[in-house]
Structure formats: C-alpha cells, structure tokens
C-alpha cells in the first residue's frame, strides 16, 4: 500500500511493501516494527538503527513523539488522497475559519467586532487558562463573522469562539 505522509509542508511517499520492507522515495529499507506491551509505544529498527517512539491518534492526525520532539503527522493512502483531490482540495483556505478554544478557560476579552477586517496575526481574543492569559491570533486575513462568546464567559475545550470569513 502506498501512502503520502505529511509533516508541516514536507511530503513523504512511503510504500509498505511487506511486513519487513518499506520503500521511501526510491530507497528500499528493511524494517522491524513492534508495539511494546500493547501500549502506543513502538520500537522501530530501520536498517539496523534503533528508534523508540510514542505514536497515538489525534483528532485529525497522528502525534509522534520521537527523541523528545512531537510531530503532527498526516497519513493518507493513495485512495484518500485521490478522493480529496476530486472533492477539491484547498477549499478550507477560502472557507470560513472557526476559532476553537485550544483548552478550557475564561474569555478575558474579545478584541474584535463582527464585520471588522482582520489581518493575519492580529490578536482576536484573550483566553485565560492555567493562570496565564493567552492571545489567540488570526491564522489569515479575513472579515470577522459571528462572535459566539463574550468577556467573562467560561468556555470548554474545542468550543467555537468566533468565525472568520
């Protein structure tokens, strides 16, 4: 099976040839891949080199903890990739962006108004959590759509706070 695996903007074409071999680009590599004691801990021997890692499934992608560094990894097989392309990739760029609370907390202030022109990086909302105030910024330019929360309100993780059009 062939996969297209993405980390940040880097794409890796990886083919799982059989239980002991993978192909990455044009390199055929020998793998020995074991799950350790049924936990999301994996031991990988790749051409004799030993790697230990934690791999677990996030909401939309895989989280890989390797040598103390955490990677957000998107894995798609060829079929998924084709379907996505057929459905018209890149729609998200122009579509509505919903700012969701990255953690539960208290809305300290909403710094934007509905209908306001917003620039990428502009602070839209301040959320207090773990005794610190966190600035939530716009990921791109746009127009402020609906604002669903107000200052002083407690919010749950992943609750939609506002929408950017």
């Amino acid at each position, binding site marked *: *099976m062939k*996969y297209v*695996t*993405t*980390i*940040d903007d*880097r794409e*890796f074409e*990886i083919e*799982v040839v059989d239980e002991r071999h*993978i192909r*990455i680009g044009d390199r055929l590599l020998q*793998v020995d*891949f074991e799950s350790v004691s*049924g*936990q*999301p*801990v*994996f031991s*990988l021997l*790749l051409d004799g080199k030993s*790697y230990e*890692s*934690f*791999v*677990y*499934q996030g909401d939309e992608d*895989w989280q*890989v*903890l*390797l*040598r*103390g*560094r*955490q*990677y957000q*990894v998107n*894995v798609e*097989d060829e079929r998924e990739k084709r379907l996505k392309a057929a459905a018209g990739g890149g729609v998200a760029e122009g579509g509505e962006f919903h700012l969701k609370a*990255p*953690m*539960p*907390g208290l809305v*300290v202030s909403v710094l934007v108004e509905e209908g306001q022109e917003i620039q990428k990086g502009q602070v839209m909302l301040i959320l*207090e*959590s*773990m*005794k*610190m*105030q*966190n*600035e939530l910024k716009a990921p791109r330019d746009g127009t402020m759509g609906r604002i669903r929360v107000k200052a002083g309100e407690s919010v749950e*993780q992943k609750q939609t706070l506002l929408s950017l059009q």
Partner: protein
Amino acid sequence: MFKKVLIANRGEIAVRIIRACRELGIDTVAVFSEADRNALHVRYADEAYLLGPAPSRESYLRADKILDIAKQSGTDAIHPGYGFLAEREDFAATCAELKINFIGPKPSSIAAMGDKGKARATVIKAGVPVVPGTEAVGNMTDEDLLKTAPTIGFPLLIKATAGGGGKGMREVKSLEEMPTLLQSARREAESSFGDGNVYLEKLVEGARHIEFQIMADSHGNVIHLGERECSIQRRHQKLLEEAPSPFLDDELREKMGSVAVKAAQAVDYVNAGTIEFLVDKDRNFYFLEMNTRLQVEHPVTEMVTGVDIVAEQIRVARGRQLSYTQEQIQTNGHAIECRVNAEDPFNGFMPSTGRITHSLLPTGPGVRVDTGVYPGFEITPYYDPMIAKLIVWGETRAQAILRMRRALEEYRIVGVRTNIPFHQTLMDSHRFMGGQFDTRFVEERFSMEGSSEIKNSSAEIAAILATLVAHKQTERSAQIVRRNERDTSNWKWVGRWERMHR
C-alpha cells in the same frame, strides 16, 4: 521536632515537602481540591482532606478551611510551599494565633517584603541598591502612575505589588499604551493574587536575573547558599535555572551575597528566602524583590551545596539553630533545572491540558526529577502548567549541559504537549552554552527554528512511524469488514479482537 505537618499546597512541591517530613520522622497531612483527588501528594501523605472545588479560590486559597483541617487533624505546623498562601501575612498571623507553627517567616517580614513598594523602601534604608521606580508606598491610582511614568523613563515595567511568576506584569514602551496595559496588569493581578495594586519599575535592559538563597534562624544567624542564575525566562516566567551563575566571579558573588544577607536582616528574617537581583552588563546589581518562601528552583542550590533546604526550613521553624555557618557552605559542581511545563513550544507556548497517558522519567547519574504527576494524571486548566522539574548535576557546567541533554532525551511524556523540545533546543544553543544570555534572550534572540535541522533529520523517521501505525490500523479494520475465509461471523470476530486488545 514537630509531630504532624500540614502541607497547604499541591503538585511537586507538596510531594517534595512530604519527602522531607518523612525523612525527619514527621507525619504529614495533605489537602486537595476536587480536581486533585488522585494527585500524588494525596497518596503520599499520611492523611488527606478535601478542601473544595477545583478553582484555587475555592480550595487551596481557602485559609479558613485549611486551618479547620489543621485543628481537626491535630497538626502542629503548616508548610505553605510556594504560591497560594505562602506569602500571605494574614495566614501566617492566624497560624500564630492558633498556636500552629508556620514554616516560613514572621508575618511582619512577609508584610515588609510582600508589598514590593514597602520592600523597596525597607532595603533602601539598609543600603541595598534598587532598580529606579515608584517609591510611593500604598495603592497608587492609574492617574498617579501615568504622571510618574515619564520621570522614570521608558521602557518600564508595570508590576503587581503582590506579584510573582510574571503575573500582573506588563512591559510598557510608551505613555500612549500605558492605560490599556495598566488595566490588563491590574486585572491579571486581581485574578491571580486577589490584589490589583501595581507599581512601576525601570526596565533594566540586557540584565540578568540572579538570585541568592538565604537561610536564617531565630537566633540571629543569617547565611546565604550562593546564587542561582534565572535569566532564561519567557513572559517573566522562569524556564531554566542554574547554580552557580556563569556570569558571576568570586568577588561579585561575595559582594552580592553579603548584600542579600543584609536585606534579609533588614526585615528580621527567619526561614528560607530568596533575594532577587538584576545584574546589568557592567556588573552593577540592583535589588528586585525578596521571595519570603521556598522557591521552585531550590533544588539547584541543594545539588551544589548538599543542603536539604526544606528539612532546614522545618528545623529552623521549630526554633533550632541553622545547621551550617557561612564558612561551612561550599559549592561543588554545577546544577541545572528545567521546568517541564504542559505548554506547546511550537504553538506560542499555548497551555496544553489533558490526561498524561504515559510518562517515563529519566534516571541515571546526577539526575533528579521532582514531579507530582504520573501516567493517568489529568492536567487541568486550574493550576500552573508546571508538571515536573528536571534537575541535573555535573562536575562542570559543560558536563551538566551534556547530562541535561541526555536526560531530556530520555524523558517521555505522552498525552499533553510539553516544553521539552524547547529545553532541547536551548541545550543546543551556542549562546546558552557560552553563558551569553540575559532575561530577554528567549523572547528576542531564541527561536524554535534553531531545532529545524535536528527536526528535519528525525521527521522522516516520524513519518515512517506514523505510516506504519496507520497501515497496521488499516489492515486490522480491513480484516473486520473484508469477507474472508474466517470460520466465524464478523461480529464474533470483532468481539474476539477487542477482547484480545483490551
């Protein structure tokens, strides 16, 4: 010695104090909020009592409830740890009224140093140099502060009088932006400390944050245990501390040490305390504030001096003399502490909550981990994001850095994002290795991009790992839905598969 000590705190520091008590043969009483029922300090203590709901105002800040529990449990002393009630003069005073020993300084010393404005006035009298700022003592209005600001000059800092940990602190570049920043500083101070008063201080640029650990007994003995370098900060929150400071020489160390002792004497101090200084590039030093409590970073001093600061605090609170004279304090080697926080350094250090599913602690020569969490522990948004302190000791600073690198690589925490990658990048930074940094280093001259080379070389491996796991999962689900040669129905097969993987 005391028979039973109540620890009015949570997390790693509560565990640390329980350990010291146990070694001294003292029973311990833990208190906890509803969110902390399964916390380690609750499990390690001899007794444990519920305080109330998760928010600290309804639990760890409820002095009345804590004192009730102390009375009911027959506690003869209370250790406040750091944060929460540690620097509340009224709490220490009520303990004294109730004949419960407060393991900390006298209420009058807390009052003198707790209000930063008063502290400045007190140490100035004792001849200690201070950072220029508002000398007015008491509650200054916004109008007063706006009027005074230009006389101090910009950039300056708005600081919470009851502050600590960078909360209620704002940097001001001009008079125009000051009203808004005053408002937000007061709001944060109010929500963190229940006191929205602030004062102003000149921002000493290019300064290093160097602090002296002092210990004092009730017999008039005051000593210092050397300094800690705490310049690696972000938003005025310390991230890494080391002892000794790579910036000080013996001459300056001795000078600052004796000033620190003088500052403690000025408030008739008893117990452990810390005198914080800013040191500019020309080695001029200024008193910043005094923390009248145990500090997060105390282990680095313990590692280089061999003094158990918490045990010494307890002994001194019992009225014993200090176990050491100044001459007996010798430092050996170098120690570094990394604060491991539930924060994502790749996403603006955004706090991360959730359940820690796996945690493997580094061990080995010269490594110490102080933590209150374990696999299955839930990181909630109610308390500070610090989940562990990783401390290493080496004969030299270079060895300590190498050891820290090794320990960070061994440390595995899964379930929440942590700032371990930040510390790893820092350990690889040439400026850090060279000891060339100040308090602005992380915010102005440090980037996680520095790790991109290392990140890229491992990215391919991470991609392979995720692909292999995803492939395995796809294969399993395919087995479930695919009509194949199995001798049983899909439902039965799924049930069997789930039992096997439970």
